[in-house]
């Protein structure tokens, strides 16, 4: 784990509005206000961070992977990507990315899909879909509300032939993405526990989530 990387003179460790340590394999959620900047830090490197966003005032408006990919005309997430909701509105904008490769096609691992992908003996392993269900349940939602997500720091190249596999993440310890909230959002994370594919280098590690108030204010 590396030390804090300052991306703006106004963004220091001492003036964070929120600073969370999220253990390996754990679920997490928090509210981010319009204008705030959230940093998701891959503290140890090579850790897939499965992420969903909901409009804080109306959870029926939520992250849409298909609208996000359509709107930017590309399959991967990076600096400049507008995170689009199912209502076609911009929820957040990716303002910084020290890694350069994030997926939103492969979805979250689940006990059920693990049985199909790896064999029935992998059913009883922690999985992101379970983390998401646990976390959204705290906010009055259910499995119906768990939609295809962003996998920050997960490397899923799609070939022109259509072929896709999950390969080793390229994120190093301390790599981060920063997003500016364009509306009040609920951020929901599953810090992926998958140990059957290389999305975490087969070794889930902790992450950190930091939030700053609008620096222009």
């Amino acid at each position: 784990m590396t030390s804090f990387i300052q991306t703006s003179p106004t963004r220091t460790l001492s003036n964070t509005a929120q600073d969370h340590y999220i253990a390996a394999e754990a679920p997490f959620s928090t509210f981010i206000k319009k204008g705030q900047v959230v940093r998701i830090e891959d503290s140890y490197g090579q850790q897939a961070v499965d992420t969903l966003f909901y409009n804080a005032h109306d959870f029926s408006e939520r992250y849409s992977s298909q609208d996000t990919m359509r709107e930017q005309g590309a399959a991967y997430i990076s600096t400049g990507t507008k995170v689009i909701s199912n209502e076609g509105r911009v929820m957040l904008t990716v303002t910084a990315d020290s890694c350069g490769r994030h997926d939103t096609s492969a979805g979250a691992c689940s006990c059920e899909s693990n049985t199909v992908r790896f064999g029935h003996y992998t059913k009883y392993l922690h999985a992101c879909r379970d983390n998401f269900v646990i976390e959204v349940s705290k906010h009055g939602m259910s499995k119906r509300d768990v939609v295809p997500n962003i996998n920050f720091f997960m490397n899923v190249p799609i070939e022109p032939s259509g072929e896709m596999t999950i390969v080793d993440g390229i994120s190093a310890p301390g790599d981060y993405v920063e997003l500016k909230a364009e509306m009040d959002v609920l951020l929901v994370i599953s810090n992926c526990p998958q140990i059957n594919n290389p999305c975490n280098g087969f070794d889930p590690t902790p992450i950190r989530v930091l939030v700053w108030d609008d620096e222009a204010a």
Partner: protein
Amino acid sequence: MHIRRSDEEIAANRARYEEHQKKGLEFAPKALPGKSAKPAPAIDAKKIMHQEKLPGGWYWWTRVKLNETLRIALDDGFSTVSVVAWNAEDPSERMNLPDTVKVQWTTGLGKGRVIFSDMGKVMFSITEDSSGAHDVLMGGSTASSNAKKYAGQNGPALRNTRDNFVLIATKAGLDKRDIPAALALFAPVRVDADGRFEWKPDLVSEGDYVDLRAEMDMIVGFSNCPHPLDPNPVYAPNPVSILRIAALEPAADDLCQTATAEAIRGFENNAFAAL
């Protein structure tokens, strides 16, 4: 302090993944036997339970039972048809395209492939497919994508897939929260080396068809609206034919049920859930 997994554990898991990946990719030729021939094989009239002609811009939904087949065909020229599906018995189980592409190691769906639910079960087998050109990534149009694309043609007023699916979900007793990511049939989208989307119009033409065999009782929704990447500057979706064909028990050596280790395990999940 985080205690990392041992090098031995990591190496063992990596070896297992590489073996799965190798098998998944090696099996692929069997799961993709090539495109179905045109014209589509005729269906015995007695087997046709229902025939729908879905006008351009419109939606349609139906219930299907296990082993029935839906044939979606471009009999009247090119169009793109977006599809969503829910388990009829428990609609909280629905089509899941990320799982579908991830477990089959490809975003390219075609004859021989299957479509999974979020519960590790198979919803559809693609038993025939003459184009193999479908989009799992971008889904359908929305009011805002129409407004942008058809500016000057009263774009916002043109029918769109998102609103069509809201109508279907609501009429089926569901909610807009229940709308899953949509499969767009006859949408020749490819991804280039940088992740940019490309539209390959030569891959689809009039007379193309897809046969989807239901692997559980379902509610299935269709929207016949131009795909957001469709380069035609004019909003002009053609009608699309949809046949609902009576159930036929798959043979023991059915291609879709046996072509990959992943499909076999998915069907084992279906069989267990049906007990």
